[in-house]
Structures are given as C-alpha cells and as structure tokens.
C-alpha cells in the first residue's frame, strides 16, 4: 500500500481554483518533493493531506485513511514541520520537546531528539531567542518526536544560510534512511535533487511533470550540448549522440576546453512552469 494516494484533488478559494485535479502516488519509505512557483497549489495540497484543510473534490488516502475523517491514532503517525511557526517562544527547547513527547504513545527520547537536530547547546534557550535556522530545527524536533511514519516538510530551508541548509539536508537524509516517508515542498531545485527519490512539478494547480530528479521532463533523453574551443572561438553542437560526435571531432586532434552538458534540473523546471 502506498503512503499517499491522491486522485482528482480539487480546492477553490472564492472562485480561484488553487488545486485543479492533482493525482499523486507516494510509496512508503520514499522521499518525494513537490516543486512549483508561489501560488501553484503546493501548500494547499499538502495542508489537505495533513488534515488541516477541507477539499472540494477528489479521493485522498494518507496512510490508508481519509484525512478529512481521521482521528488521534492517525495523527500520531504523522510528523508535520510547520513553515513559519513562532510558538513556544517562552519555553526552552528542552521543555518544548519534553512536553510534545507526552502526546505520543511511544515517543523518541527527547534528549536524543535534541541532539539529533543539533540543539544540545541551545537546550536551555527559549524558543523566542533562537535564530531562524535553530528555530526550524526545533520545528523538526517537534515533528519527529512521535516517531512518525510520514513526515511533511513545507519549504523547510527557506531563509537558511548555506551551511545550515547542508546540516538540515543531512538530518533529512538520516530520517529517510530510517525508513520515514517524507513529503517536502520546496522552491530550491538543488534541494529536490539532493534529497528526493522522485519529484512532481506543480503549476496552476496541476501536476505538469513527475519523475526522478534525473529524468524529469525528459531530461535524460534531451539533446546534449558539446562545446569546445577552436581557433575560430567557442563551437557548440547539439546532439543526441555526444559520444559519437566527440569521437568524430577528436580525429583531428585534441579539443580544447571540451564540455558535454545536458539541461540542468533548473532548465527543465523553468521550461515546465513557463
């Protein structure tokens, strides 16, 4: 059974169709990234899956349950990492993590979780005094304390500095390695490429492409650009058989500054949402 199965999901706000027929299948243990520009329907879709929002139409099954009808036992299996929460400002990291652990039947050890997200040195600091990156790590701590089978991360690294992002990615990889199913939305293509087994691109409330980061939008089969420097300046040939092209070209001798490139995930993405 898939962790998430969505068919024909729709949601409108005051005449504006935010989600216009989304289908998704996410396997257990998979890391799945939803990409898309602002207003593409990412957050609305995810909030429906989390049980935070009603839907207008469509079938939704999350861990075998319809989120609109789900109860406590179902919520106990989820880990939701909020996007912009500023709660627990007057609780210390330690107090908050220990408190949230009490909600679950079989929580992780709070001290281990604090250590896992790298907040051991900040354990006695109040939530309101943490930096942006530390604050998000507290959000992750509260999201994983209940040993979730499925985690939702909505634009988790927005506003992070590069080092904090790398640390965060390592944490997500670790959770994925433990078998947690992860659904993340993001603006960052490198993030999707680094973390996701599969990605879907949402635009205008629909899935416009789906696949692995390596094959999305026909990326693997796209023409390659072979580029080198000759006495007449830079030369470029677009070809579906770059190996053959280079073999022919190199018969005349060494090719200076030779490169073979395929469209980056960013090139494919920008074409898809255009």
């Amino acid at each position, binding site marked *: 059974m898939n962790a998430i199965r969505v068919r024909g999901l729709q949601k409108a706000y005051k005449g504006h169709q935010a989600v216009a027929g989304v289908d998704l299948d996410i396997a257990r243990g998979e890391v799945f990234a939803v990409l898309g520009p602002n207003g593409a329907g990412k957050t609305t879709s995810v909030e429906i899956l*989390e049980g*935070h929002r009603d839907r207008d139409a469509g079938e939704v099954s999350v861990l075998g349950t319809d989120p609109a009808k789900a109860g406590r*036992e179902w*919520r106990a299996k989820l880990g939701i990492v909020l996007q912009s929460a*500023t709660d627990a400002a*007057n609780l210390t990291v330690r107090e908050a993590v220990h408190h949230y652990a009490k*909600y*679950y039947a*079989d929580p992780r050890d709070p001290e281990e979780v604090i250590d896992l997200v790298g907040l051991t040195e900040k354990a006695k600091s109040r939530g309101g005094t943490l930096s942006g990156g530390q604050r998000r790590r507290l959000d992750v701590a509260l999201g994983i304390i209940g*040993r979730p089978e499925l985690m939702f991360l909505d634009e988790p690294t927005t506003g992070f500095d590069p080092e904090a992002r790398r640390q965060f990615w390592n944490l997500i990889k670790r959770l994925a390695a433990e078998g947690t199913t992860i659904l993340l939305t993001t603006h960052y293509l490198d993030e999707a490429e680094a973390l996701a087994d599969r990605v879907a691109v949402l635009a205008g409330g629909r899935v416009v492409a789906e696949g692995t980061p390596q094959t999305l939008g026909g990326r693997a089969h796209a023409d390659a650009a072979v580029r080198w420097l000759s006495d007449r300046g830079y030369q470029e040939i677009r070809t579906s058989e770059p190996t053959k092209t280079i073999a022919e070209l190199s018969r005349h001798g060494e090719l200076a500054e030779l490169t073979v490139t395929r469209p980056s995930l960013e090139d494919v993405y920008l074409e898809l949402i255009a």
Partner: protein
Amino acid sequence: MTTATLPGTLSLGLSRGATELREFFRQKENLIFTVSLPALLMLLLGTVYVKEPAAAQMFAASMIGAGIISTSFVGLGMSVVADREDGTLKRLRGTPMPFTSYFIGKIILVFVSSLVEAVLLMVVAVLRFDVELPSTAGKWLTFGWVFALGVISCSLIGVALSSIAKSTRSAAGVLNLPYIVLQFLSGVFIMQMALPESLRTVGSFFPLKWVCQGFRSVFALNDDYAVMEAAGSWELGKIALVLGAWTIVGLVLVSRTFKWSNTSR
C-alpha cells in the same frame, strides 16, 4: 506498528495546564496588565472615591468581579488568538492531542491567573482600604461558586469571540470594548442605582453584573446593603441561573465556531 495506547485526555490536559502557566508567568506583559492592573486600578480609583468603610467593601467586591472577567474573558480570548497567530494551534492540530486537553489546559491557566489576580486585589483592599474579608464559611462558599461560574462562562465567551479576531491586535479591540462598556453598565465604576433604566437592563443581560453582584453579597458588611442593588436583593439564585445559561451558550458557540488557524477551511 505501535500497540501502546495514546495518553489520556485528562492527563494531557493537566500537562497542557502546567505548560500554559509556565509560558504565561514568563511574560512580563501578562503579569503587569492581566494580573496586576485591577489591583492598580483599585488603588487609584479607591483612593479618589472611597470615603467610608461600607463603600470600600462594595468597591473591592466589584473590582474583584471585574478583575476575573479581565483574566478570563479578555485574557483567555487573547491567549487563544495568540495561539492561532503564532502557530501553537496549528501545531497541536497536527499531533494526537485532543481538543479537550487543550481546553482543560486553558481552564487551568485561567483559574490560576484569576486567583492570583483576585488575591492581589484583596491584599491591596485589606492593606490600603481596611476591607474586611468574608467571615463565614457560607460567604466563602458563595464566593467560590460565583468565582467558578464567572470564570468558566466568561472564558467560553472570550474564546468564542476570539474566532472573530484575525490578529492579537484586533483581538485587543474586540475583547476590550465590550469589557470596558460592561464595567460601566454593571455597577463596577458607577452604582447601578445611578444608571438609567435602559442601561441597567442592557447590563443585566451580561455576566459581569451578576458576578459583581455575587461578590458584593459576599463582601457587604450586612445584608441591608442589598437594597442598593437594582432588584433590592442579592438574587443569588438568579446569578447562578444567568451565569449557568452563559456557560451553556459559550459551550455551544465554542464548539460551533472554534478555528484552529486563521486560514483553515
């Protein structure tokens, strides 16, 4: 797969209450405005207006009534709006914690903060205005149930009204306006006898008048002072009836209108 059962609603409620109190008393603005303001007002207004012991008794009683409405109606309403604004409610919605536990936590918060506020007020009243505290067990019993019913009914109405407010800033207006107006209509600042019939009638629809009347019955030097009430008696039965009715109205409103976030649905 876990086979262990989730923690009970009551024990989670108690844990919520402890966390709520911890957060509440760590915020200076709560200590200053919510808990201490009524005592400060008592000190200021009392110094100006109170000329004789009987008046001090009545004024202290009314201020205690107004004070617990401030901690329950305004204070709790504000705290729910803040929970919605900062993501507390959204986070809790994503956990297996039942809504009832959240509410038990809030009731604990409101009872403790109201009690602290009332004790502070009584200390000021006794030390500065020589107010006599109730001397019989019966009076304290009345104090107890008026306090409990007042706190519960006004808490529920405050939470229900908090659904209207989009932010803590607008909530301050939504909650303080009725509170301040009702203080004038309910015999806190102005004796009810001095009000025109129409205003007195408006005031008598709301809990504040009845809470204050209940406390005045407890603090009055003797029962002869009941003639100063609008009906000429303490009307304890009616107090219980009105506050009970508001509690039921509040429960219905909260269960129908409660929102977990500003953007849900």
